[in-house]
Each structure stands twice: as structure tokens, then as C-alpha cells.
């Protein structure tokens, strides 16, 4: 059965009709789609492609659907390497590079249903696609089929219930209108102390003037409040007797209250002009205007107030004595230590109240302070990352003949990103004085350094006031791209290239006491000229076998999130900021023999000159710190396999698997700067007279399974649909701490020699070590601190669906998705090491000695368990 079509050039950008119930396979996706498209339990950006239609890539069409829960991404790339477009215009956040799908389309399944998968090398008439592929959402009103649809969903995930309604007119007298909206609500999600309250609305209108011109306007708004859950340590999970313990919430006056509430609201307008010059020539132009509000609340406190987080390490039993040492044959605790340890354990386990945030106590403390004329000791602040963005994309598509096709496009973006924090709640107090508590401790309460805003010293902050920091990041981007496709007989060639320019600038709105000369005003723009090219050669052996050979080279500008050394305080750029370089190549083999078809791919990618930044509290220096790594080199390579066997039109089985590697290939340069100090950034190891380094070589890219396998069976009969999937994940590694791998933080070992005259040294794998030569100024060898690998994980999912035809053309579909039906509650899929050392320096008699902390951060990374068994029931009624 020949099924591999030789590429044919045609304007086939027709999206799936979201309301047009089609037969069998399309019905199936129709029945199951709502669950995947609106699932926010995984990272939001990963759900973006769950319904994208990758017609010609069997691997992507299955993996994006199945592996989302494991945080797998194709080639184990970061999400910033995906292109996400709407009506052809790129909507990736230019600061982080990532698209938050749920912030825009949450609760709007029907508005985002018309998705087209975008692969890296293959021709598309929409935009230049990044190395991670991507997807395009078509939000034109004409693409909604006429009719009404009501949807009711019940689940036990982030929310409990969802109600949606969609109405579309179809094209009538040259006009098309579409409306979809809904509400998602969960007083408490599947994690205690979480909730979701969200409403969404999409309005679309399209005017088709004639066969040449149409104009589409779509509007989206979706205010969402969501209380989130936290990662915490294995010890805390053990004490709470649950892998789903969430320390972010507590009782206030008998009511649950979360300390971490995320508020998003992104009203966005899409204006698209489609100009069809003739049957083979088209110009598509889209403008997107987006005002994104993103806020997240945190509890903060003044000097000398206890940390309110219930899982703060001082409150953990293991802070009493070295319990891990004792378990490994070290010193056993004495009676007093054991008594105290047991006292902690008893307290944690005595009641739920003891292991949650004590809001009432914070109010009590604040009210006491007010009584004495004082200010807030504890307060709830909201950190804002807002954006005002304009995106423009114009794409010209020309088919010259059956062999030649040209695409040319222009992309523009201007974004003003606004970063500041506001006072969300003074928790019973009347004001907070805007000084930095760390700097005030170091420099004195009355020092200039303590002031966050020197122009308004000691400002009394009241509810909703801005304080702490306030700055804008201004970004401009322009890109010209082109793609040329040539097809001849069994050969196809797609050649694409782009040139782009980026400017990044910081505009400080506060004069910080720690950097009065460099904090307020504009930084001056950093400019980057970059670009890239890629090519794919396709060779179709016959109707059953096809090969693709692809390669590319890209220069990418750094993202602004990593461009500044200490963006909350000052304008200083990361030194030697430059373009990142990416070389990528893959070979793909697609085949179809009888009832058997599949795809095999091998890929290799090398990233150079990457920049990464971490913000953390350096508890040795007792200062908030930014650690920036530059010059990072990474390699990703591996193989991907997709197989499908169709027993008959009702029954099929498939397998998809990815096995690869993604690791740091060199030791990165490091620059560290203290947020609360006036000391300059430091990228120099004073002791060893060499640039400061992070021992990153051979560290794995974190929190993405390098092995992901899935076996599935599908069966349908009489409009009943059944699917069972078993997913296996392995070789997923924790996010490693750069701080613990700094050459001046890792143990430094002097070279010694054995009897054979060979250098020798012992290294504790939990700490790693750096070996220097006799001069102490050259690294001879090193062993990085061991990076934890999570245990392998297996999850079984089941889907059942029924499509029902009613009279008068009305239909109903019911589907039930059951995830993790074996209720495996021991799967750790995400986690990070803390940037905190297990050691501390003691200075005595002008000599510094290193001592061991009782609490072992090295044994207590913050981790998250995959969700237990959960279900999603969805009922659609079309009328």
C-alpha cells in the first residue's frame, strides 16, 4: 500500500475544522482533544503542541501528545527553541524565549484547536521555524465551522469543572464570526492549597471582501488566578506522609490561604490580512497587540523575623544532627540530639497546621508591631513581569510551478517589559519601609546603601504601592527570512535562511542605594546581528521509503533574561555578551510497508556561547546573588523511532521511543554579583589567579528524560474509541546547582603522588573536587559534584470515547481520560539542587577553617512527584 506521498507543492495550509465532525481518525482527535489542549498540569508551553497536526512526522505527532507529563521535549531542547506562531506571527516571549500557551489559550480549546505543526527543516508558508520545531494556531473566524457547541468537563487536576460555549456563524455574505468562552473553576485542585479561577473569552470576526482579500480580527482575554504548589525535600514529604505535600498554604481565620498566587491576564488582539494575488501567490500579514500581566505573590519579611516557610531548612529534623552521616556509619546522635530530633518529628507529624504557613501568627506579630507604632514585620508582595508587545509578520508565498516555491517573510517585534513589585497585603500592618533588609544589616539601617529608592528614601509603602525594584526592559527585533523549495522527481530540496537584528536595553525607574550611578535611567542598547541557514535534502526511494538529510547553522542573540548581571538593581550587562551559535543536523528515514509504517531519526546539535543565570541566596556571604555562566557549550544527540502497525481499520498498535543525550560539553565561565552589596561583579578566582569557572562538563541537561518510550494500542468500533498507553521514562537528571560547582566553592585539592609517582587524590562524589598543580594556578583534573538521576518511571494511561449522532445533525461526544491508572505515586520527574553549601567558613585567630553544617543541602534537593491517578471527563454537545 503506497502511502508516502512525493512532496507536491500546493497551498495546503488548510487548518483542521474544529467543529466539523469527521469520520474515524478525525473523530477520534475530536473526541480526545479537549483534555490535552486544556491540560495545565504540565508545563504550560509543552501543551502548546499537543494537538498540533504533524502530518508528515510520525514521531512528533505522537510524542508531543504522550510525553507531555514527563517534561520530555524533542531532542531534549529547552522550550525557548520552539517557534510558536499565531496566524503566522511569532508569539514567543522575547525575554525568556518561551511561549506560555496556557496564559493565552487557557480555557479556549476551540480557539486554539486549529493548530499546524511546524518542523524545523520542511517547507512552510508561515514563518521561519526554530530548531525545536513549533506550531501555528489559526484564529481566523472563518475556520470555525458554523454551529454551536457546549462543553462540560470534570476533572481532579488543577481545577474541578469547566464550562465552555462556542458559537460560529461560518461564512455568510462575506462575513464570519466566532465566539468561544468559558469558565474553569476549582476551589481546591488535586494538591491541597491550590485553586484555579479562570474565565476566558475569544471573539473573532473576519471579512472576506472577495477572492483576493480578507481581514480577520480576533480578541482574546482570559483573567486567571491560580494558587500553585511547591517542590520540597524528600524529608518534608516523609514528615507529611505524602508525596503531594504543598507547603505554600496555611490557615487564616479558618480558611485556606495560599502564599503563591499567580495572576495572569493577557488581552490580545490579532489582526490578519490575507491577500491572495492569484492561485499561486499569497501574502499574509499579521499584527498582534498584546498586553500581558503576570504577577506572583510571595511572603517577605523584615530583618530578624523568622522565615515563614514551613519547610525552611532550620525547621527540619535533619538540621539537628548529621543524620545522613549517622546512617552511613558516622557518629550517632547523643541523647540530647535525638530528643531534639524526635521533638521536631513529633511537631511536624502532630497536626497539619504545624507543617503549613501560620498566617494567624504573622497577623499577630504585625498587630503587635502596629500596637507599638511599628511597621509590617511580614507582608505579601507581588512580583510583576508585565509586557506590552507588538508583533508583526508578513509572509509572501509564491509557487512558481510544480518544482519551485519561494517564501519570504518579515518579522518585527517591539516589547516593553515592565518588572516591579507591589505590596499585595500588609497582613494587618499599616506600612512597610522600603529598605533592603540585607543591605541594612551590612551597611546600617540609616545608610544610603540600605535604600531601594534613593529618590524616595525610607518611603512608607502601603497596599498596591510599587517598591523594592522597578525597571523596564526594551527589546526590538527585526528578522528577514526566506525559504526556497525545489522538487524534482524523487528529490526535494528546502533551503532556508534568516538575518535578524536585536536590541536590548534596560531602563531603570529607581535609584538604588547599592548602585546610585548605574541603576536609574537607560543602560544604552546592546545590539546583536545574527542569522542562520539550514537545508534539507529529501530523497524518495520509492513509495515505501524516503530519506531526509538536514543540517543548519544558527546564530541567536542572547535572551534579555540573561543579559544583565543584576537586572533588579543596575544596568550592567553580562561581560562579553555575544550571539549563541547552534549547529544542528539530522537524518530521517520514513517507511511504509504493508500495514507497517514508521520513522527513524538520528540527530546531533551543538550549542556554543550559551548564557545561563541563577539567582539565589548565598548563605556564606549572606547576600542575594546572581550567578551568570557564559561560554556554555552543550551537545544533544540521539535517535528517535516511531512505529505503527494497523491490524485493520479498527485496531492499531504503535511505539515511539527516544534515546539520546544532552549534556554540557565544557566548563562554563562564571560571574557572580551580590544584589545587596556595592561590590562589583566578580569573575576571577583570586586564590588561584584564574578566571572563575563552573565545573559543568558532562553535567546533564536537567529535568527531561533522555530515554522516553511509549507503547500504545488503539481500537475503535461503532464510534467507540479506546486507547491504552504505557509510557516509560528514564535517565532524567536533576537541575544541577552551578554554585556548588564553582571552582572557588568546590574543595580544592593539592596534588600528591603515590609510590609510582602518579598523581593521586580522593574525592567525595557528593562534593566533587578540583585538583591543582603545585603552583596552585593550573587545574590538573576535576570531578564535578555528582548529579542525581531520578529513578525510572512507568505510567499507564487509558482513554475511552464515544461519538453519538443525534437527530437534526446534532452530535455529542463523551470522552474519559484516565492518567496514571496504576496510581504510581513514586515517580520523581522534576527537581533541583539548592544553591547552598553543606559547609561554612569559620574565622578564628585570622585563620579560616571550613566546618560542616548539620543540615545537608546535598542530600535534600527540592523535588516534585508526578501526579497520582487522575481523570478528565469531557462532554461536548454540538447543535
Amino acid at each position, binding site marked *: 500500500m503506497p502511502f508516502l506521498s512525493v512532496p507536491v507543492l500546493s497551498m495546503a495550509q488548510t487548518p483542521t475544522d474544529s467543529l466539523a465532525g469527521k469520520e474515524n481518525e478525525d473523530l477520534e482527535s475530536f473526541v480526545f482533544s479537549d483534555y490535552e489542549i486544556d491540560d495545565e498540569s504540565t508545563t504550560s508551553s509543552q501543551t502548546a503542541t499537543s494537538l498540533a497536526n504533524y502530518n508528515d512526522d510520525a514521531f512528533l505527532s505522537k510524542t508531543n501528545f504522550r510525553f507531555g507529563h514527563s517534561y520530555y521535549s524533542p531532542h531534549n531542547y529547552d522550550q525557548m527553541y520552539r517557534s510558536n506562531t499565531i496566524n503566522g506571527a511569532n508569539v514567543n516571549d522575547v525575554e525568556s524565549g518561551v511561549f506560555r500557551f496556557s496564559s493565552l489559550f487557557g480555557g479556549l480549546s476551540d480557539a486554539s484547536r486549529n493548530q499546524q505543526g511546524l518542523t524545523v527543516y520542511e517547507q512552510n508558508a508561515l514563518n521561519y521555524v526554530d530548531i525545536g520545531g513549533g506550531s501555528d494556531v489559526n484564529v481566523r473566524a472563518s475556520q470555525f465551522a458554523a454551529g*454551536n457547541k457546549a462543553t462540560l468537563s470534570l476533572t481532579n487536576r488543577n481545577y474541578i469543572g469547566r464550562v465552555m*460555549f462556542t*458559537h460560529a*456563524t461560518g461564512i455568510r455574505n462575506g462575513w464570519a*464570526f466566532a*465566539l468561544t*468562552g*468559558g*469558565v474553569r473553576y476549582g476551589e481546591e485542585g488535586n494538591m491541597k492549597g491550590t485553586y484555579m*479561577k*479562570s*474565565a*476566558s*473569552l475569544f*471573539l473573532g470576526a473576519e471579512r472576506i471582501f472577495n477572492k483576493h482579500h480578507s481581514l480577520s480580527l480576533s480578541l482574546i*482575554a482570559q*483573567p486567571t*488566578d491560580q494558587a500553585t504548589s511547591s517542590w520540597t525535600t524528600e524529608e518534608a514529604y516523609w514528615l507529611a506522609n505524602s508525596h503531594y505535600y504543598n507547603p505554600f498554604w496555611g490557615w*487564616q*481565620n479558618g*480558611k485556606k*490561604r495560599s502564599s503563591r498566587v499567580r*495572576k495572569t491576564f493577557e488581552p490580545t488582539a490579532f489582526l490578519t490580512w490575507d491577500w491572495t494575488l492569484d492561485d499561486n501567490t499569497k501574502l499574509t500579514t499579521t499584527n498582534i497587540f498584546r498586553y500581558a500581566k503576570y504577577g506572583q505573590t510571595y511572603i517577605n519579611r523584615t*530583618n*530578624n*523575623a*523568622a522565615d515563614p516557610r514551613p519547610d525552611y531548612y*532550620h*525547621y527540619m529534623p535533619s538540621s539537628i544532627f548529621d543524620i545522613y552521616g549517622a546512617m552511613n556509619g558516622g557518629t550517632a546522635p*547523643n541523647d*540530647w*540530639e535525638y*530528643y*531534639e530530633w524526635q*521533638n*521536631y518529628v*513529633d*511537631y511536624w507529624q502532630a497536626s497539619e497546621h*504545624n507543617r503549613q504557613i501560620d*498566617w*494567624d*501568627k504573622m*497577623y*499577630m*506579630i504585625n*498587630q*503587635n508591631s502596629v*500596637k507599638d507604632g511599628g511597621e509590617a514585620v511580614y507582608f505579601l508582595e507581588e512580583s510583576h513581569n508585565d509586557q506590552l508587545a507588538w508583533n508583526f509578520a508578513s509572509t509572501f508565498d509564491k509557487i512558481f510551478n510544480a518544482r519551485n516555491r519561494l517564501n519570504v517573510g518579515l518579522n518585527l517585534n517591539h516589547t516593553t517589559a515592565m518588572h516591579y513589585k507591589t505590596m499585595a*497585603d500588609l*497582613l*494587618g500592618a499599616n506600612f512597610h519601609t522600603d529598605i533592603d533588609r540585607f543591605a*541594612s*544589616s*551590612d551597611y*546600617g*539601617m*540609616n*545608610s544610603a546603601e540600605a535604600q531601594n529608592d534613593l529618590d524616595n528614601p525610607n518611603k512608607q509603602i502601603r497596599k498596591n504601592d510599587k517598591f523594592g525594584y522597578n525597571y523596564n526592559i526594551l527589546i526590538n527585533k527585526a528578522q528577514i527570512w526566506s525559504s526556497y523549495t525545489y522538487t524534482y522527481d524523487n528529490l526535494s530540496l528546502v533551503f532556508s535562511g534568516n538575518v535578524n537584528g536585536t536590541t536590548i536595553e534596560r531602563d531603570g525607574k529607581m535609584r538604588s542605594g547599592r548602585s546610585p550611578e548605574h541603576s536609574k535611567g537607560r543602560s544604552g542598547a546592546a545590539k546583536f546581528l545574527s542569522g542562520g541557514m539550514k537545508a534539507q535534502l529529501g530523497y524518495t526511494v520509492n513509495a515505501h521509503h524516503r530519506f531526509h538529510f538536514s543540517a543548519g547553522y544558527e546564530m541567536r542573540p542572547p535572551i534579555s533574561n540573561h543579559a544583565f548581571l543584576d537586572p533588579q538593581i543596575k544596568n550592567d550587562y553580562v561581560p562579553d555578551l555575544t550571539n549563541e551559535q547552534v549547529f544542528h543536523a539530522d537524518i530521517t528515514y520514513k517507511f511504509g510497508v504493508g500495514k507497517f509504517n514508521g520513522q527513524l531519526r538520528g540527530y546531533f546539535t551543538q550549542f556554543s556561547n550559551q548564557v545561563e543565570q541563577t539567582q539565589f541566596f548565598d548563605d556564606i556571604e549572606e547576600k542575594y546573588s546572581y550567578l551568570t555562566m557564559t561560554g556554555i557549550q552543550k551537545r544533544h544527540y540521539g535517535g528517535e523511532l516511531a512505529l505503527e502497525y494497523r491490524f485493520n481499520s479498527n485496531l492499531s498498535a504503535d511505539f515511539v521511543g527516544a534515546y539520546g543525550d544532552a549534556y554540557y560539553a565544557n566548563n562554563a565561565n562564571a560571574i557572580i554579583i551580590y544584589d545587596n552589596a556595592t561590590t562589583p561583579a566578580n569573575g576571577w578566582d583570586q586564590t588561584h589567579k584564574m578566571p572563575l569557572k563552573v565545573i559543568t562538563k558532562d553535567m546533564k541537561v536537567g529535568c527531561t528524560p533522555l530515554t522516553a518510550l511509549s507503547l500504545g494500542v488503539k481500537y475503535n468500533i461503532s464510534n467507540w474509541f479506546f486507547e491504552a498507553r504505557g509510557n516509560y521514562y528514564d535517565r532524567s537528571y536533576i537541575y544541577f546547582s552551578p554554585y556548588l560547582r564553582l571552582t572557588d566553592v568546590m574543595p580544592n585539592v593539592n596534588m600528591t603522588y603515590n609510590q609510582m609517582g602518579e598523581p593521586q587524590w580522593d574525592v567525595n562524589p557528593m562534593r566533587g573536587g578540583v585538583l591543582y598543580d603545585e603552583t596552585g594556578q593550573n587545574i590538573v583534573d576535576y570531578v564535578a559534584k555528582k548529579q542525581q538521576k531520578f529513578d525510572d518511571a512507568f505510567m499507564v494511561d487509558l482513554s475511552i470515547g464515544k461519538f453519538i449522532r443525534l437527530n437534526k445533525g446534532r452530535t455529542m461526544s463523551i470522552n474519559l481520560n484516565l492518567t496514571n491508572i496504576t496510581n504510581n505515586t513514586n515517580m520523581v520527574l522534576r527537581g533541583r539542587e539548592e544553591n547552598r553549601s553543606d559547609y561554612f567558613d*569559620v574565622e*578564628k585567630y585570622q585563620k579560616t577553617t571550613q566546618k560542616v553544617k548539620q543540615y545537608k543541602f546535598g542530600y535534600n534537593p527540592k523535588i516534585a512527584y508526578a501526579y497520582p491517578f487522575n481523570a478528565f471527563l469531557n462532554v461536548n454537545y454540538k447543535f
Partner: protein
Amino acid sequence: MKKNIFYVLSVVAGLTFTLTSCNKFDYSEPDMLHDVYNSDTEATGTTTTLAQVKEDYRVFVTENQHRWQKVEEDVIFDGYVCANDISGNLYQAIYVRKGDDAIVVGINDNSLWTTYPVGTHVVINLKDLYVGSYGYMMKIGMPYTTSGGNARLGGMPKFKAKDAVKVIGQDETAPETVPVEVNSQWLEAKKKDTNEMHQWSPMLVSVKNATIKGYNGRAVYAVYEDRDAGNGVNDVITVDGKNYTLRQSALASFSADTIPTGPVDVIAVLTRYGNDWQFSLREAKDVIPAE
């Protein structure tokens, strides 16, 4: 067409209502002071007094600076907090006073001032705790082993304190919050008598017209680099021409503050170091220019 308009208007109206009401959450503010601090509850169930405890355990304090005894039965008494760790200058301890007797209550926790503000009325049960000597001062807590392997009397487990040092009310006007005014004559006289030192250490005291000089002539209370193994520096307080140690933590929130020049009135916790007196400030505002 009318049907379409109806659909559109209904959905837009419904969602507009939801959009506008969605983000409003009301967490009523609890009146925590009403229950805990509105009035001072009379201590009930006490079995003894602080004065009696100081007398009963005198032998464990005055004869050896590292001696203690575990209390096996209920020994319950009350008192008022007269000093705490509000600035971090006093560390992991509150000072509880009743009449002219005071005691160090060690608790392995920070920010004790938030639970035990000055004037807090507490009832202490010594059962399962240790009473003993902390540099010849009476302290309640639990022993621990230093990194050098020596046993010392430290604080009680922080969660143990929730039961052992119960808050029953607050009275900021309690006599125990008023410092005992002392002068050099008083200080010199008392330190000659071991019993008097036992009686008056610790104690909340005040001195008039004193002067303070920073360690090594520093203009601030403490410089981090000057700190000793106990994270402190010894400033000098001069009372009526007599010099005494003003023990200052380099980690206190006011350590970088400038010391007032000229005569000052000072409120401080009086403790003993060996056979001499030592002063420790509770917070910077305990030092005010003398009238």
C-alpha cells in the same frame, strides 16, 4: 440573526460578570491580639515561683559554670519577658523576670521576639528540661555538644518551647518590664557578693549618663571583621567613670549603626562574665542621648 445576537450577548454578559468577579478574594483579617494579648490572664497551675527555682537550683549554677540537672517532674512558675532577640543582639534566648528575679530561657530558635515580645506573660514548665549554669548564670534549656566535643547548656528544642514556655497574656506595663536603675556604686557593691551576683544576673537594668566606645575605637557598634569566635565584639560602656563590657553581636541588625557620641541613658540586660558585670543591649533604641 437574532439567535446569533442572543448567543453572543449571553456569553459576553456571562463572562463579563465572571471576569470582573473572578479575581476578588476576601481573607478577613484575624484579630489575633484579642485572644492572646487583649488581657493578661492570671497564671494558674503554678507549683512554685521563679525566686524559689533560683534558690532550689542555686548549687548547679554558682559552683560550676557548666553544670546542670534534668528536671523530671512538673515545676511550673510564671514570669514576664523583659528582653528578647528583637535585634539579634541577644541570641536564641528570652529573659524572663518575676519581681527581682530573672532567668535566661534558652530556645533553639530565631525571632523569638515575635512570639515573646517584652511584657509577654509566660508560664514555664521545667519538666524534661535542664536547669543549670550558663557562665554562672541560671539558664533553662538543654545540653548540647560543641564541635570541639564539650558539653554545654544550650537552648531547648524550638518546638518544645511551644509547650514548655506558654504565652498566657501580655502586660507591657508590668513592673517586670521596667528596668532596675543602677549606677557604678551599685554595680561595684553587688559584684563583691556571690549571692548578689546570682540574684541580679541576669536583670534588666538602666544606667544614666553613660558613654559608649566601640571596640578598637570603631564608630559603630560592631564591625563584622572584628568579631571573635562567639560572633561578638566587646565595646566599652563607662558608668560614673567605671568601665564595663558592652557585649555586642556583629550579627545584630544595628551592629553597623553609629554609636551616639556623648552621654547616653542606656537600658540593657545585665549579665555576668566570670566575676564581673557585662551589659548587652536589646536593640538600638535602648540607647538615647542623656537629658
